[in-house]
Structures are given as C-alpha cells and as structure tokens.
C-alpha cells in the first residue's frame, strides 16, 4: 500500500463533478505531480489529500490510515500554498515555529529545528523579518520551510512557483527537487506547467476533466503518450487523424491518398479510426529533389520557416491538407522559402498510435 491511497474518490460541487472516481497510489519518497489545464481537478484532488475539501464519496488513506473525513489539523500532511499564506503579523521565525508549537514540543527543540530548517532554505539571516519585507522567492522559501519543519508524511505543493518570474522559477524548481531528494520526503505537486512537471517529477499524473488520463514517468509521458489529450498537452506534437490500413502484419495510416507506415503496439483492424502523434523534433524536412529515403515520406509545401535560436521551425502543408511542424538543428539546412516543394519524413518507430 502506498503512503497516499485514493480509492474511487469523487468530488462534486453542486451539479459539477470536478473529480471523477479517482484511484491512485503514491509511493513513499516519490515526487508525484498532478499536471493538467485549469479546471481539470488537480488542485481539488490535492486539497482533498490535505483535508481542505471532503470527498463526496470514496476513501483517502494516509500511511495506511483512513483520513477521508478528518480535518486538516488532524492529518500528518503539510501544504505549501500558491499564495504562500504566510502569517503577516508574525516574523519568519514565528511562522516556521507555528506548526511545532501546535505539537507542543519543548521550546529548545523548536528553536533548534527552526534554525536548522531556515539554514537549509538559506533564510537564516532573515529570521526576524516580517513576510512583507521579503521578496517573492524568499517568501516561497519560508513557506516551504514552515511546511517541511514538521516532517510531514507527505508534503503537498499547490502551484508553489506560479507567482515567480521565469528565471527564479527555474532556480526554485532545482532547489525544491534537491531538497526533496535530500529529505527523502514524499512530495505531491500540482502545476499546469508541463516543463515543471517533467523536470521535477518521478511520476506525472496528467489530469483532464476530473480523470487521470495517464500516470507515468516523465520520459514515458513524453515519448509514449497513451491518449490524444496527453500527446497534445505535453510538449508540441503533430496529430494526424485517419484510418488504419492493414496488410498482414504491416500497418499503415490512410491519409488522403497517402499511406503512412505505422507500428502500433497491437494488431489493428483495417478501417479503424486512429490518430498518429509525431513530435516536431522527430520530423525531417528535405527539398523534394530526388532523394527519397526510407520510412515515411510525405510531399508538401513550406508555409513558414522560423528561426527559434537553437532550431529551425518549419511548417509544412501536406498534399493531403494537414499541417506538420518540424524542428531541426540549424546545421540541417538553411531557411526554406515559402512555397518550396519539400518532403517530410520520420521514423515510424518514433510516431505513437493513439485512439482517434
């Protein structure tokens, strides 16, 4: 049994089912991220683990104990809030000591632990300040310190970096991740930023419409998406919809007049509607003169070429009407003019077959 278990958890607000029968097991010491667009139920799920919302039905277990109906102050979890929620009338030190004081620990021990954790987040020199005298990043560190000082079974983080600017956010991602490794603490994280989710997590649960669409390691989420939504939401991708054409063990996707070889995991019947997801970095664009290579080769014309620094981004309109985006290293070719006849191609192994 995982350190956090959700069983058939449903949350309804009025007539709206925000979370739909969620089953989930979170391992001890794991960094798990709920990722999804706003309104997908990720924050509500986190708040149910924290005790701020009660599930409409289903059970939640923390370290083997059912906590579904327990208020937050009776659960051994701590939360880093999106707004930080630092107590404005207390100093940094008082904020961090608050949880330990509730546990009625001896004064000397509180003092020692607070000092230790403030040093860990490099806020020891700010202990006497009030929250409003700190920058966003500093407040963020205090909020983390205030939560981890209690040594919770699970640390919940609700979009904790959402209010920071990009550069600081990247730094804090790194800091949070190394803090989590050092403490070996279970982190449950909520974000709508896919890059954040991919870089920090051991596992990512991609949520959509109150359900988990896929829960997997970041590499698998990116390379082997299981649904159209996941493929589309994580990173950039080309989605081509068409029908299966099978000849013996060889599969192809019929797209307009073209046949694109595909390699599905299982045997698919001819005529079945599917989507093919191909990452732009897997696609190559070549001028249509002569060299027809192996694998997928589709003719089209260049609509637009953009230089994005590290790569050329080329948008190609296929003969069949679909748009395909390719990103290639600058060395591959120069700028392709609009209207140039090209062929796009990719290795069939790098394309993922999805339900239509």
């Amino acid at each position, binding site marked *: 049994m995982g350190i956090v278990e959700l069983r058939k958890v449903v949350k309804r607000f009025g007539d709206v089912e925000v979370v739909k029968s969620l089953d989930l097991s979170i391992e001890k010491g794991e960094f798990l991220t709920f990722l999804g667009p706003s309104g997908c139920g990720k924050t509500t799920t986190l708040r149910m683990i924290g005790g*701020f919302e009660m599930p409409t039905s289903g059970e939640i277990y923390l370290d083997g104990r059912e906590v579904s109906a327990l208020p937050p102050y009776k659960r051994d979890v*701590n939360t880093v809030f999106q707004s930080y929620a630092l107590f404005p009338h207390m100093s940094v030190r008082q904020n961090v000591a*608050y949880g330990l004081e*509730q546990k009625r620990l001896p004064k000397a021990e509180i003092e020692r632990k607070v000092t230790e954790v403030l040093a860990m987040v490099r806020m020891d020199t700010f202990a006497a300040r009030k929250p409003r005298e700190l920058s966003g990043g500093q407040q963020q560190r205090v909020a983390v310190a205030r939560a981890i000082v209690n040594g919770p079974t699970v640390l919940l983080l609700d979009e904790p970096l959402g209010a920071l600017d990009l550069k600081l956010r990247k730094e804090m991602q790194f800091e949070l991740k190394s803090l989590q490794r050092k403490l070996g603490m279970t982190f449950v994280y909520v974000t709508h930023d896919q890059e954040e989710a991919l870089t920090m997590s051991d596992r990512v649960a991609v949520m959509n419409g109150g359900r988990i669409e896929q829960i997997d390691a970041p590499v698998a989420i990116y390379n082997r998406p299981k649904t159209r939504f996941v493929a589309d939401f994580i990173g950039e991708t080309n989605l081509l919809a068409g029908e299966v054409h099978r000849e013996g063990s060889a599969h192809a996707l019929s797209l307009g007049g073209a046949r694109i070889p595909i390699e599905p995991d299982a045997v698919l019947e001819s005529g079945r509607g599917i989507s093919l997801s191909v990452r732009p970095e897997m696609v190559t664009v070549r001028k249509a003169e002569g060299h027809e290579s192996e694998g997928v080769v589709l003719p089209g014309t260049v609509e637009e070429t953009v230089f994005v620094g590290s790569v050329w981004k080329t948008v190609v309109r296929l003969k069949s009407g679909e748009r395909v985006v390719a990103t290639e290293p600058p060395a591959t070719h120069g700028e392709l003019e609009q209207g140039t006849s090209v062929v796009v191609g990719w290795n069939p192994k790098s394309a993922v077959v999805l339900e239509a």
Partner: protein
Amino acid sequence: MKRRFDLPTFLVGSAAAFVLAFIYLPMVVVVVYSFNPDAVNVFPMRGFSLRWYRMLLDDEQLLAALRISLLVALGGTSIGLLLGVPGAIALARHDFPGKRFLERIVLLPLTLPGIVTGVAMLSFFPLIGVPVSLLAVLIGHGTFLIAITLTQVYARLRRLDPSLEEASADLGAPPITTFFKVVLPNIKTAIIGSALLSFTLSLDEIPVTFFLIAGDNTLPIQIWAMMRRGISPEVNAISTLVFAGSIGLILLGTALGGRDKE
C-alpha cells in the same frame, strides 16, 4: 521662479476652506464661549474663565447623565462587538441559507431614520416584555451598533486571504487556536476601530434613546433638556468636553489604524 496663479487649484483650495469652515466654525464658537466669564454669549468676551466648568462639576444631574451615557455607550458597544464580530465571520467565511438577504439588510438599522427605529422598538419591546427603560436603550443602541462592527470587520475579513486560516489548520491548529492566533491579530484594528466609532455614535445618539428612555436621561438628552431653558454657557462647557473626548477617540482610532498599514 515665481509661482503662477492657477485658477483650478485656487478654486479647489477655496472650496476646501469653505467646507472646513462650515463644519468647524460653529464648534470653535462653542469652545470659545465655554471660557466666557459672562452668562450671555457676546463677543468680544470680557476675559477668560473656567466658571462654567466649575459649575458643571457641581451639576449632579448632568454628571449622572454623563455616567449613564458612558454606561450605555460601553454596553451598546459590547453588544455590538459580541454579536457583530461572530456575525462578520459567519458572513465572510460560511455559507448558509439567507446569507445574501442578511448581507443586504444588516445595514438597515444604520440607514433608517433613527425616529423610525425608535418608534419600531417602542412598539416592539413591550411585546417581548422589555419595558421602556435603560435596558431598552441599551438593546436599542446595541442593535444599530451591531451593524457598525459587522460591516467594518466583514470588510477586513474580505481582504484577509482565507488560505491563512487553511495554513493554520494545515499546521495542526484547531479552529479556536486559528481564531486567536491568526484571525484575531489580523482583524484587531478593525475591531478597535469599530468599537471607538460605536462608542462615539452611542454617546450622542438622541432619537432612539428618546423613545426608549424612562427616567434616567443620557447626556445628549439632558443637554437638550437644559437647552429648553436657553443656551446656558454650561452647555458650551460640556459640549467642549464631549468634543475633546471625541477628537481624542478619533485620533486614537487613526493611530491604531495607521499602525496596521505599516
């Protein structure tokens, strides 16, 4: 560089001066005349005297009225706080049937003419067995003072991030601890401010009091009764004292409110 004459600035400045004069000149007159050695209000005065203040100290009726007024103001303010603060928390943090309706009508006792509230209470209180008395006055004042505390504290709570209370619970504090250690320190100045405002409002309230009072006059009613015998310089003296007291409370209120916004 010579400053040029600026018509809009001049007009705004004059308007401000007029408004201030309009409000404060009558007060100044009262204060000045309270030190008049003569019984007739004429200017210029023939000297400076504390005669009317001395007389005030010997006026048993007036002193009794002052005591009653302070008592009523204290009691009314307490009722306002005891019911207004929980009411504000209920409105700001909880959902219950009729909440919207309550939000709308809670200001009614303040906005209705005092005479309407007075008549209403005069006809209602006997029905629930409260005779016309000091108790009735106390309840009457409490009723419209609840509105003051409730609206002030409610406004503050609306600006207080609810996740502070969640954070407190998250860190292991039960609701009572959360209230005293997190909520109260953050609404403290709103409570003190509304208490001071309630106190001053109660101190000079006439219409509601007038309908509900039995024998013991409050200070404004006593002053009003004295006025029927002509403007006595003694009235100037007591008015000056009440004015000074109010200014003191207002200064105290702003000082506390200002500290909050540091």
